[in-house]
């Protein structure tokens, strides 16, 4: 009986994992079953594959390259508002893509602030559509994420190293090579891989800023094959390509990605003795200001235009907002029901390989899952009636890998520290959850719930497939307003969406930490 004393939630955990796998497998099976034997990928599909890889590579490279100086400057300096800025770096991750796109359009668009400025100077304007635009938007989303990951790395360098360097009077350059470069070597590959995977499956950005034969991602091609051509065979083939590509990168990322921490990069500001020179100081200040401006100006633009646009919003926006809140809350509930037992099961095991199950959600195309379930439901009922349920399920799949990443390490710690005590006291099953795990993991559960809520609130994916006048979420409503060139109304809706996304995240995250101690 080599039974581990700490095996927890084995049945519910495996059950949840199997359910997730089945949900994806069934969708994939359904899509493949409809794929006619003659289905083939055309030249435009290969162009989409090429574009997808190219833009993801550029986006991840640029995001991480730009993040290095910003993170370094933030790690070296203390200033008023630093904590707020670091917190804001987490915002783009939960920012609805469509809202960010609107902000970027306001700043970089055809009649945007940058182009107006350039025109006044007599310089030809820049276009935000196509390859540039997609990369720009991806960098906007992922540079702050990469900055936070790197900042975490900087803060994990033991302060003794910096003291030693100060005693040895190392120059900033020598210091970079001796201390900072080895850390970067560890963190950068993971950050690159994570951003690459995120950009690989990007849909909303490609839908709004890309498009056309030269700027279509695989995900967008799946959407078009399904929605416009109703060519299930091609959609199926593309889904498989996507699954293989994103799946293998996601697997790679799993080994490389540093764990996501709450408030990572916020605490432990240690004194530094290096980089006190005027030039270093000015350089850091400039880098921080540029980084902050890149993040804050588009966000400010959304708020500014949104306030002006609020009165012009049609009443459908409010109905859509209600629908979105419902979907988001539902996603949170379902996510917790799946992620908690799965995390417990994974944390109780010795190896961590089962985390891969969660990654399926990251690599399987949401649109593929949506398409698959459309096909599965179609013979029995009106698939449009299930639009919101499928959306909810897909949102949960998307959030699952992140939730596991957040929940598993602290759960493993809690079991490592208190597992034997719990077992000795006869705490098993539900009692173990109630006495040990739920109270110990409150903060992380709140964080994971908040992330899920925000992702779900802002998601524009499957719902676009099932578009139907009666079941519209707020991001879709916003996209429609933009498509109809009602930009002011869209800006108002963007502000509402922004407030709801950040609001649901804030409530869950604060709720988790409320009166939490020890």
């Amino acid at each position, binding site marked *: *009986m*080599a*039974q581990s*004393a700490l095996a927890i939630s084995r049945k519910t955990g495996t059950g949840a994992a199997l359910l997730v796998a089945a949900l994806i497998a069934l969708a994939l099976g359904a899509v493949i079953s409809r794929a006619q034997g003659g289905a083939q990928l055309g030249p435009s599909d290969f162009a989409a594959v090429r574009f997808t890889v190219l833009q993801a590579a550029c986006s991840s490279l640029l995001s991480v390259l730009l993040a290095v100086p910003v993170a370094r400057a933030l790690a070296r300096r203390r200033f008023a508002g630093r904590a707020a800025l670091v917190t804001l770096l987490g915002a783009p991750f939960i920012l609805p893509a469509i809202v960010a796109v609107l902000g970027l359009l306001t700043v970089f668009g055809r009649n945007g602030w940058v182009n107006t400025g350039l025109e006044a100077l007599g310089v030809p304007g820049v276009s935000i559509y196509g390859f540039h635009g997609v990369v720009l938007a991806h960098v906007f989303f992922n540079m702050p994420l990469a900055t936070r990951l790197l900042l975490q790395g900087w803060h994990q360098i033991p302060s003794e190293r910096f003291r030693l360097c100060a005693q040895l009077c190392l120059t900033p350059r020598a210091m970079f090579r001796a201390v900072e470069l080895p850390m970067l070597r560890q963190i950068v590959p993971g950050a690159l891989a994570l951003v690459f995977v995120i950009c690989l499956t990007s849909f909303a950005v490609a839908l709004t800023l890309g498009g056309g034969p030269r700027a279509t991602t695989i995900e967008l091609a799946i959407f078009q094959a399904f929605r416009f051509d109703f060519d299930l065979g091609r959609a199926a083939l593309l889904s498989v390509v996507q699954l293989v590509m994103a799946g293998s990168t996601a697997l790679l990322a799993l080994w490389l990605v540093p764990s996501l921490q709450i408030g990572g990069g916020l605490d432990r500001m240690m004194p530094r003795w290096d980089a006190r020179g005027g030039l270093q100081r000015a350089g850091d200040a400039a880098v921080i200001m540029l980084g902050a401006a890149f993040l804050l100006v588009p966000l400010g633009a959304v708020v500014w235009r949104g306030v002006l646009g609020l009165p012009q919003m049609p009443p459908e926006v409010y109905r859509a907002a209600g629908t979105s809140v419902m979907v988001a809350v539902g996603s949170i509930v379902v996510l917790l029901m799946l992620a908690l037992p799965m995390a417990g099961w994974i944390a109780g095991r010795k190896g961590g390989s089962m985390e891969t199950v969660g990654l399926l959600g990251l690599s399987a195309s949401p649109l593929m899952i949506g398409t698959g379930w459309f096909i599965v439901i179609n013979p029995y009922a009106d698939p449009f009636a299930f639009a919101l349920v499928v959306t909810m399920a897909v949102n949960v799949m998307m959030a699952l890998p992140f939730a596991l990443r957040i929940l598993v390490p602290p759960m493993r710690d809690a079991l490592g*520290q*208190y597992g*034997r*005590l719990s*077992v*000795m*006291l*006869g*705490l*098993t099953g539900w*009692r173990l959850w*109630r*006495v*040990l795990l739920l*109270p*110990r993991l409150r903060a992380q559960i709140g964080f994971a719930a908040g992330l899920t809520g925000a992702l779900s609130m802002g998601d524009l994916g499957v719902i676009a497939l099932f578009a139907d006048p009666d079941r519209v979420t707020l991001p879709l409503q916003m996209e429609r307003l933009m498509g109809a060139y009602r930009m002011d109304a869209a800006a108002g809706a963007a502000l509402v969406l922004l407030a709801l996304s950040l609001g649901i995240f804030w409530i869950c995250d604060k709720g988790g930490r409320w009166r939490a*101690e*020890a």
Partner: protein
Amino acid sequence: MLKLDDMLIVQDDFELRADFTLEAGRKYAVIGPSGAGKSTLLSALCGFIPLASGRMIWEGRDITNLAPGARPMTMLFQDNNLFPHLNVMQNVGLGLRPDLRLRQAERAQVEDALGRVNLAQYAQTKPGNLSGGQQSRVALARVLVQARPLVLLDEPFAALGPALRNEMLDLVQDMVTQTGAAMVMVTHAPDDVRRIADEVIFVEGGHAHAPRAAAALMEDPPPELRAYLG
């Protein structure tokens, strides 16, 4: 009372054998070099490590495959003996009710135990706000309410200063004397052995040797033990 019948523990390339009987109400010290397997022995007794072979017989009943919580023993670990998010009352109460639903009589029992370790006024306090010695006493109060016939101590007082540690050892000694429980204590300090142990289990070279009377053994140690004691 607890018969270790040709028991063998295997962990990777580490092996430990034990074949002896622990008697009721006796106080045993487990000593031996670092890494010899003192903690491993206790973990196996408590059921955290499965046996490779052999049996454990408790008063004629085979408990080899029983879950840790179902065994007639309780253990204090080196650290993490209390849940930091639960208050003192709840931590002690877990010894009686794993679901924390204490009935009136059980509450009174917990309060009585806290009184006996001089912590009556701290029932609602969280462990983080207590000193190291106070935390140890909370854990002892839980051992008291659990009232298991065998108490295992895996150096739970190692982090305390000498005076405080002696105080705790005296308290433990009082407790087991009152409840009639047997005690098995891992220690590094010969002084501890002299202070409370009746018998000594010397762990060395892959063997947990059968217990020998403490006084005689410490007076005239065999060569291996002499080498360890220095």
